[in-house]
C-alpha cells in the first residue's frame, strides 16, 4: 500500500466531505477542486499518468472553472449560503443519509468479499490507451464527439436569453 495513495485518498475523502457539508458554494467548489486534484494523484498511483493529467486539465481546470464562472455570473453570495443553511436540516438529510450509508456498507462489503489473486498495479501507458481509442473504440469516440457537439449546441440554445421570458412549453403551462 503506497503511502502516496493513502494520503491522497484521505485528502480526497476529507475534501469531499467538506463539499457535502459546506454551505457556501464558492468554498464547496474549491474543496471539490482539492478533491479532484487528490483523485488525480490516486490515478497517478494506479499507473494512469495520462488520466491524472486529464483529470487536472479537464475536470479541475475546465469544468470547475466553468461552474465557478457560472456561480459568479449569477452572483450567488451570502444569501444562497443562508438558504443552504436553512435547507440543510437534519430532518431532511438523516433518512437519505442513512440509506446511503447502508448502500456504502453493502458496496464495501461486496468489494471486500472479492478474493481475487493479488496482481499488483499494472501501468497502462497512454500509447495503449490511444491505440484502443482509435482502434476498437473508434465509433464511441465519434459518438462522443457528437455528444460534445450536442452539448455545445444545447448549451447555446438553452442559455440564450430570449426576449420572451418564458419558454414556450412553460408559457402554456403558466397560462392555464
Amino acid at each position, binding site marked *: 500500500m503506497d503511502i502516496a495513495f493513502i494520503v491522497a485518498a484521505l485528502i480526497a475523502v476529507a475534501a469531499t466531505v467538506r463539499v457535502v457539508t459546506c454551505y457556501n458554494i464558492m468554498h464547496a467548489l474549491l474543496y471539490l477542486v482539492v478533491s479532484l486534484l487528490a483523485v488525480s494523484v490516486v490515478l497517478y498511483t494506479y499507473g494512469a499518468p495520462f488520466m491524472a493529467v486529464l483529470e487536472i486539465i479537464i475536470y479541475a481546470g475546465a469544468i470547475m472553472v466553468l461552474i465557478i464562472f457560472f456561480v459568479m455570473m449569477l452572483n450567488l453570495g451570502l444569501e444562497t449560503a443562508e438558504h443552504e443553511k436553512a435547507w440543510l436540516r437534519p430532518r431532511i438529510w438523516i433518512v*437519505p443519509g442513512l*440509506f446511503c450509508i447502508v*448502500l456504502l456498507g*453493502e*458496496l464495501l462489503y461486496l468489494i471486500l468479499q472479492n478474493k481475487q489473486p493479488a496482481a499488483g498495479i499494472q501501468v497502462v501507458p497512454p500509447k495503449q490507451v490511444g491505440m484502443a481509442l482509435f482502434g476498437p473504440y473508434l465509433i464511441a469516440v465519434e459518438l462522443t464527439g457528437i455528444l460534445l457537439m450536442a452539448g455545445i449546441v444545447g448549451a447555446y440554445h438553452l442559455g440564450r436569453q430570449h426576449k420572451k421570458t418564458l419558454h414556450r412549453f412553460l408559457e402554456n403551462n403558466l397560462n392555464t
Partner: protein
Amino acid sequence: MLPALIPAIPFLGACILMLCWKRVSRSAVTVIGCGSVALSAIVALIVAAAVAAAGKEPVVQHVWQWIQVPGFAAGIDFRMDVLSVVFVLVITIVGFLIHVYATGYMHDDEDYGRFFACMNLFVGSMLVLVMADNLLLLYLGWEGVGLCSYLLIGFWYKDPANNYAARKAFIVTRVGDTAMAIALFLLFEHMGTLNIQRLLQEAPVLWAKGDPMVTLIALLLLGGAVGKSAQLPLQTWLPDAMAGPTPVSALIHAATMVTAGVYLIARMHVVFELSPAAQTATAVIGAVTLLMAGVSALVQTDIKRVLAYSTISQIGYMFLALGCGAWSAAIFHFVTHAFFKALLFMGAGAVIVALHHEQDMFKMGGLKKMLPGVFWVFLIGCASLTAIPFITAGFYSKDQIIWLSLAAAGGHKAYWLAGMLGALLTGMYTFRMFFLVFYGEAKTKVHHIPGAVMMVPLYILAVLSTVAGFIELPHTLGHVTLFSHWLLPVLPAVQLAVDSMALEWISQLASVVLALGGIWLAYVWVIKRPQGMVDFLSMPGQVWLQGCWRRGWDMDALYDALIVQPFVYLSNVNRRDLIDKIYTGTAQLMEACHNLMARTQSGILRWYIMGVVLGAVAILSVLIWRLHTVS
C-alpha cells in the same frame, strides 16, 4: 262452428268496444256490450240443446292449431260436454243479466265503453276456460280471467287503493297459477299430452290409487284452484276485490273467476279421485275456509265485504263437496250460488247507488219502505243464501252438500259439523246484514231509486234463485235428480257410505234449525237488543278478536310480514344492484391504484433519486443475500 262462437262473440264485442268506444254512442256501446253476451247465451242454448239432443254426446270443435312442436301439440279446441254446458249457460245467462244491470249502474261513468269492453273480455275468457279441450287453452282462459279481474277491480284507476286491490288480486291468483303450471308440466311429463280427455282416460291406467305423483299433481292443481277460488290460504285478494264497481263484483263472484277453481277440480276429478290425500286436503280447505270466512263475514261493516266473505264461505262449501267426492253437488251449489249471489250483489249495488255510494251498513237502515222492490229481492237472495227450506234454491244445494259431507264415501263427521256450523254462521251474517240495511231507522237519505233496467235483472234472478233448486231434490223430498243425472257422463254419481233416510232427515232438520237459529240470533243482535250486543262486543278481548276477524284473520298482515315486506325490502336494498358494485368496485380500485402511483410522480427531483437509491439498496441486498445462500 257453433261452440267456438260462444267465446268468440264476447271477444269480438270486447275488441270492437276497445277499438272504437270513444267514437260510438252510449247506446251503441250498450247494444254491443249486452248484445254480444246475449248472442253468446243464445248460441250456448242452441249448443246445449244439441248436446242434449245428441244424447249428451259432447260437441268438439277444432278451430286452429295453436302450438305444434315435436312432442307437444295444443290446439284452440273447444269441447262442450254436459259440465261445460252447465257452466256456459250460467256464465252467459247470469253474465247477460249483470251486463243489463250494469248499463243502469254504470250509466253515468265516463269510461262506460271501456267498462263493457272489459266485461265482455271477462265473460269471453271465462267461456274459454270452461270450454277448453286442453289444459293449455284452459290456462289461457284462466289467466285471461285474472287479467280481466285486474282491469275491472282497478277500473276506477284514479284511486291508488283500487289499483293495489287489483294488483293484489292478480298477483295472489298468479301464485296459484304457478302451482297449476307446474302441475301441467308434471302431467305433460308423465302423459305427453295436455288434452283433458286423454288425461282423464289415461290417468287411472298410469297411476294406482294413492300414487305420490298423482297426489302431487292433484295438490298442485288444487293450489291453482285455491288461488282462483279464493280459498285458504290464498283467499286474501277477494275481499279487497270489492274495490271494483259492483257489477264487476257480481260477475267475479257469481258467474266467473272464483268458480273457476271449482270447475278445474270437477273437470280433473279423475286425478283427485286417484289421490285420497288430495281429496282430503280439498275438503279440509273447504271446511276451514267456510268457517273462517263465515266468522269474518259476521263482523264486517261494508256490505260488499260481507258478501265477499260469504262468497268465500260458499265456495268453501263447494270445495267441501268436491273433497267428499260429491261432484255434482258442488256444481249444483255453484249454479244456485251464481243466481242468488248475483242477486245479492246487484241488490247491494242498488242499495249503494240509492244511497249515493255509501257502503257502510251502519250508515244504512230503514230501507224497507224506501226501496221495497230491492227489499223483496234482497230478502229472497238472503233466504236462498241462508238456505230457508223448501222455497229457496240454496236450501236444496247446500243441504245436499251438508248431507253428503257426512254420507258420501269421502265424508267425515267433522266436515258435517263444519257444514252445520257454517249454516249457523250463514244465517247470522246474512240476516245481520239484511236487518242492518233494511230495518231500523234511516240514517242516509235515498237519493236515487234504481230504474227498471237495474231491477228487471234482479227480478229474474230472484225467480231463478227460487226455482233453480227444484231440478235436484233430496231423497227425503221427492228425489228429483235431473241435475246430477245430466252431469252423469262427466261426473260420476256420488258413492254413499251411509244411506239412511232417517239420518238424512235429521241432518236436514238440524241444518234448518241452525240456519233459523242464526237468523234469530241476528234478529236479537241487530233489532231486539242491539245495546246488549254492543256491550258484549266491547269487552276487552272481543275488540281485538273482532278486529282480527274483520281483517280476515289478519292473513293479510301475515303475508305482508312474511312475503311482501321481505321482498320489497330486499329489492329496495338491492336497488343499485350489488353485482354492479363488483364491477364499479374493480374500476374504483384501479383508479385508486392509479392515484397512488401518480402520487409518486411528485415532480421533486430528490424523490426520484431516493427511489434510485432504494432500488440500488434493494438490488445489492438481494445480491448479498444470494451470495450467502449460494456459498
